Structure formats: structure tokens, C-alpha cells
């Protein structure tokens, strides 16, 4: 085991997978010599040469070329420099990657991983801070994975690369250096499609994912001292959802707080709420509550406005507290 940050865990997962399987290659903007603008691919060009490919500045081609290579039999890992800049590639991702297995009646398939840094709190303003998962959580054929810790980041990214279907892999850019933890230096994978129970609790259930898991854990720790016990479920895969884990977690305490750092309306938390409303409505002791960013286009640049937008540990803490007192 080694201490490393979320970024290091991702870099290690890429390196190990490229060593393990020569069909794995990386393509994206500035992923080569530069090692990516966040340095997620640092050192890989030096080790693997042309298997780390600087592409022209064109996301639809990055996705589309990746899809073609994946259908051929390679295992491409495409980097979108920021999740916000996946949007030119939406047609390739939704019309192609997601539908190829189905439309070809299982003749072709697309083992493509699309990595993209998402999320805010780093002065990235409107176009370097967005959460993109809610645009893709209604597209059968895709899987959407969002790790919440260095350990998960490594295990889930390796699983994504080995997955036989297209996986959108979102990495919280603020987590890159903020989150540190023990990460095994040997090979392991974590299951895609399964949520993880982060801690057992009795009073309030928090269901969340990504960086908010970290803030929820911090909030829970402080609340523990005031006698409030929090049950925390990390979705890890936000599409398709792990319904059973959600229902179990909701039933556990009967009070559910859903947290996302995306805008509220139409977020992936709407689906979690819907699952609960369908499956365990009568097990609840309080209305389902969603804590999310406000429904404005994206977070502003100026610090006070950015803060207004962000879902923080404090906001999560008050929300748990209120729910506990309900």
C-alpha cells in the first residue's frame, strides 16, 4: 500500500493497464509530452510512446476515433480535457458508443473508456466546473462511473478499461489533489454497477457520489459528536443505478438526504428519489430531501458567487441535522 492522491491513483491505473494489455492506448488533447493539463497521464508518453496520442483539438473525433478503434478490438481510453468539453462529442457518445451493441444485435461492441475531469470549486467558472452526468443518465448502453476516493479511482478505472461496454469515467478535479489515501500497488478492480456503503448509521441516510462523499463523511464525523449517526451510501456508478443498495440504504434510517454538486432539477438524484418513491415509500419517516447546487447554468468565477453555488460540508451538515430533527 502507498499513500497517494486521487490523481496519482488514476495515473497508476492507466500505467498498470497499459502494461498489462497492449491493446490499451490513450488519446486526447495534450495527453502526450504535457501529460495532460491535470497531469493524469504524466510519464506515460515517456513509457509508452505513441500509445499515448496527442490528438487534434476536436472532441467528436477523439470519441469517434476511439469508438472505431474499440470496435476493431483495441481498448482506447479517451481523455476529454474538461467534462464541459465533451459536449461536441455527445453525438458520438450517445448515437454511436451507446447504441452499437444493441443496433448490431451484439455483432459489434465498444470497449471504450471516456475520462473527464468534472466539478468545481477551483475558480474554473461556467465552463471548467460543470457536472455532466445528468445529461447521460438516460442513455441505455452507457455506464457512468464517478469515484470518490483514490482507492476507488484506481479500482474503478481499471474495471472501466476492462469493461466490454463504453464507460464515462468522471473525475472530480478538486479531488485530484485534495483526496489522499492508501492505494494498493498491486492489481485490483472494483465492480461497476455497485454502490458502496461508506458507513453504517441509524438516524439519517445520505446517498451521494464523487467529492460530496468526502464532505458527507466530514459532516457525519462532526455530527457524531452531537449524537447524530449517519448512514452513507456512495453510488459510485450513477448509471445504471444500483437500485437494491439505494432501497436498503433508504430503509435503514427512513430519512434520506440526497446530495449532488450538480444542479438540482433533473439531476441523477431525481432518479434516486424516484426509486425510493417507487420501492420504499412507506418505510420513510420524513420526506426525501435533495441538497444540490442551485438551478443556474453553472458556477460563476468570482469567489463569493462560486461559494454561493457550491455544495459544501457545512451545507450537508445542516441538512443532515434538520432531517435528524424532523
Amino acid at each position, binding site marked *: 500500500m502507498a499513500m497517494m492522491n486521487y490523481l496519482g491513483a488514476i495515473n497508476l491505473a492507466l500505467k498498470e493497464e497499459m502494461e498489462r494489455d497492449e491493446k490499451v492506448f490513450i488519446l486526447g488533447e495534450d495527453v502526450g509530452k504535457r501529460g495532460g493539463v491535470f497531469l493524469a497521464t504524466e510519464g506515460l508518453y515517456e513509457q509508452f510512446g505513441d500509445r499515448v496520442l496527442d490528438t487534434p483539438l476536436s472532441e467528436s473525433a477523439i470519441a469517434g*476515433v476511439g469508438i472505431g*478503434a474499440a470496435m476493431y478490438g483495441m481498448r482506447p481510453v479517451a481523455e476529454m480535457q474538461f467534462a464541459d468539453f465533451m459536449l461536441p462529442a455527445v453525438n458520438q457518445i450517445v448515437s454511436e458508443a451507446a447504441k452499437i451493441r444493441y443496433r448490431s444485435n451484439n455483432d*459489434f461492441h465498444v470497449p471504450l473508456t471516456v475520462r473527464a475531469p468534472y466539478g468545481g470549486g477551483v475558480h474554473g467558472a461556467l465552463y471548467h466546473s460543470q457536472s455532466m452526468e445528468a445529461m447521460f443518465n438516460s442513455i441505455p448502453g452507457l455506464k457512468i462511473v464517478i469515484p470518490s476516493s483514490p482507492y476507488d479511482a484506481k479500482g474503478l478505472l481499471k474495471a472501466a478499461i476492462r469493461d466490454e461496454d463504453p464507460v464515462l469515467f468522471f473525475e472530480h478535479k478538486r479531488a485530484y489533489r485534495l483526496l489522499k489515501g492508501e492505494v494498493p500497488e498491486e492489481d485490483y478492480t472494483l465492480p461497476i454497477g455497485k454502490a458502496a456503503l461508506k458507513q453504517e448509521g441509524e438516524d439519517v441516510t445520505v446517498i451521494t457520489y464523487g467529492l460530496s462523499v468526502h464532505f458527507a463523511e466530514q459532516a457525519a464525523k462532526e455530527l457524531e459528536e452531537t449524537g447524530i449517526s449517519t448512514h452513507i451510501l456512495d453510488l459510485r456508478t450513477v448509471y445504471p443505478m444500483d437500485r437494491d443498495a439505494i432501497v436498503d440504504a433508504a430503509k435503514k434510517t427512513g430519512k434520506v438526504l440526497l446530495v449532488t454538486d450538480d444542479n438540482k432539477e433533473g439531476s441523477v438524484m431525481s432518479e434516486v428519489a424516484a426509486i425510493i418513491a417507487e420501492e420504499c415509500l412507506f418505510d420513510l419517516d420524513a420526506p426525501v430531501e435533495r441538497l444540490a447546487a442551485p438551478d443556474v447554468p453553472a458556477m460563476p468565477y468570482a469567489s463569493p458567487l462560486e461559494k454561493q453555488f457550491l455544495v459544501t460540508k457545512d451545507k450537508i451538515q445542516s441538512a443532515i441535522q434538520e432531517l435528524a430533527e424532523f
Partner: protein
Amino acid sequence: MSASKHAQLGLSDTDVLYMYESMIRARKVDERLWLLNRAGKIPFVISCQGHEGMQVGAAMALDGKKDYLLPYYRDMAMVMHFGMTTENILMANFAKAEDISSGGRQMPGHYGSKALRIVTGSSPVTTQVPHAVGYALAGKMEGKDFVCLTSFGEGSSNQGDFHEAANFAGVHDLPVIFFCENNKYAISTPADRQLACESIADRAAGYGMDGVSVDGNDPLAVYEAVSRAVERGRKGEGPTLIEAVSYRLTAHSSDDNELTYREAEEVKAAKEKDSIVTFTKYLKDAKLLTDEQEETIHKQIQTEIDEATDHAEQAAYADAESAMLHVYDQ
């Protein structure tokens, strides 16, 4: 001319007769599909009529054992020359389980078969173009010498995906043949409302690749241009953009009404240059085809189509519940 044109190109008499047969087969299948549609037996037809010469000429230049094809919906003659059978086409048009492209899931014209190295396609235009680049990139990484031919209409060449893919292939010197079938219309929109350039080939320079425009009604001219592009591709000399100019002889599809936007006169004039007409004449002038042989070929193909139609009509649909399958690996 001392030697015949096809001999100069290295094509045997058998080769050109084979091309001729493919063209006739495609035309006759196409005509059958319209009949079936008008009879209410199949819901939709999209046609290759007018494109047979260029499609067969292009496919003839590829190596059916190693190259890849990433066609578009109008490429029936091309995919048939590359390996799809008459029955394959009829099964797809009847949307039966035996449709090799999709088991009846996709509309006709959405060709795909891993075994035939025809890569599955969709409806949004030009999404297949970057896929061709991806195949070519994979081949380069693995040291293979196959080429990938991808085709699209002139209207579709205005999509961003064409541009991004062409540029990618240009930068990385990938063996992709960008084959534009310019039939002068995109549904109702004439080429001059789609494009301001003289020829799609004018776009090649912007991607640092060779560009050439050929008469799409001449299968031999197309064969020649594609063969050169194949040669360049195999040698690692990069991609080529080829425009083949012809005309769409039918409405865009069975849902279209061409009378609202073009004159019957124009269509009539185009029919005189139809590759089926001109290539038949070429073969007859070269004494490779007699009237009797022509009749025999037509009859054989007609019988083949009748049988395929019967099979397809009688074949089973996929089970309704099978609609739930193959979303993910199972």
C-alpha cells in the same frame, strides 16, 4: 485506343463482367424493394439507383479479405459487391431475425457485419467517418496494411464529423479513403445550397491529403481513383478524398416526394448517363456482352431475387422479448 480501358487498369474481362453483374443485381434488388413498398409489404425503402457504377467501382478496388468498409445508407451496391447477398438485403428490408446487420432492429440501409468487415452504421450522417479513422489508427498501431473506405453524401460532407475525422487522418497519415458520393441533392436541397466549392475534392488540401473528383457514372474511372488511394494507403502515404459525381435517380426515400423540388426533365436527362446504361454499352462495344448473355444474367438475378423475397417474407421476426437483449455485455 489499342487496349480496352479496363485492361489498362489491370482488370480482366471476367472482372468487368463481375462488376456488371453486381450493378445489375443491385439495381434489380432496388427495384424490387420499391415494388414491395408500394404493395405495402415493407415500410421503407432507401435507394442506390444512380450510384451503382461508383459503388461497384469503389468496392472492386478493395481487398475483400482484409480491408474495411464503413458505408452509408445509400450503399447497397457497394456492400453487395463486398459480400452481402441478395437474401441478406431482403431479410433486412423485411426486418426479419435473419437480417445480418441488425436482426431487424435497424431500418434497411444500415449495413454491418463483422464477418464481412462491414462496420455497423447508424442514421445520423457522417458518424461513421471518424470510426473509419479509428479502424485505420488501430491498423497502423498493429502494423497491418489494410485500408478503410468510408462513404457519405455531398450534403453530409458539411457535418463537423467529416472535418474532424479528415483532419485527424491527415495529421496521422492514416490509410482512410473518404469517398463522397455527390448525387447533387441532399433530400430536396441541391448541391449549390449545400456547398460553395466547385468540388468536394477542393476540401482535401485543407487536410493535407490528395483530393480527386471523378465521373461517378464511370465505374472504371472510380475503380482507378480508388485503386490509387488504396495503394497510397497501404504504403503508409496517408488518406485520400475522392468525390464521385453522379445523380440520385429516385426520390430520396419512399417517404419523399421529389416532385416538390426538382423537374422531371432533369431526372430524365440524368437517366441517360446512368452507369447501368453506359457500362452495358461499354461491355457490348467491347464485345464482352451479347444480348443473350445480358438476358441470361438478368433472368438469373431475377430468379435469385424472387427466391430471396420469398424466403425473407416467410422468415420469422425476432421474438418480441428479444428487444430487451444486448444493451450491455451479458
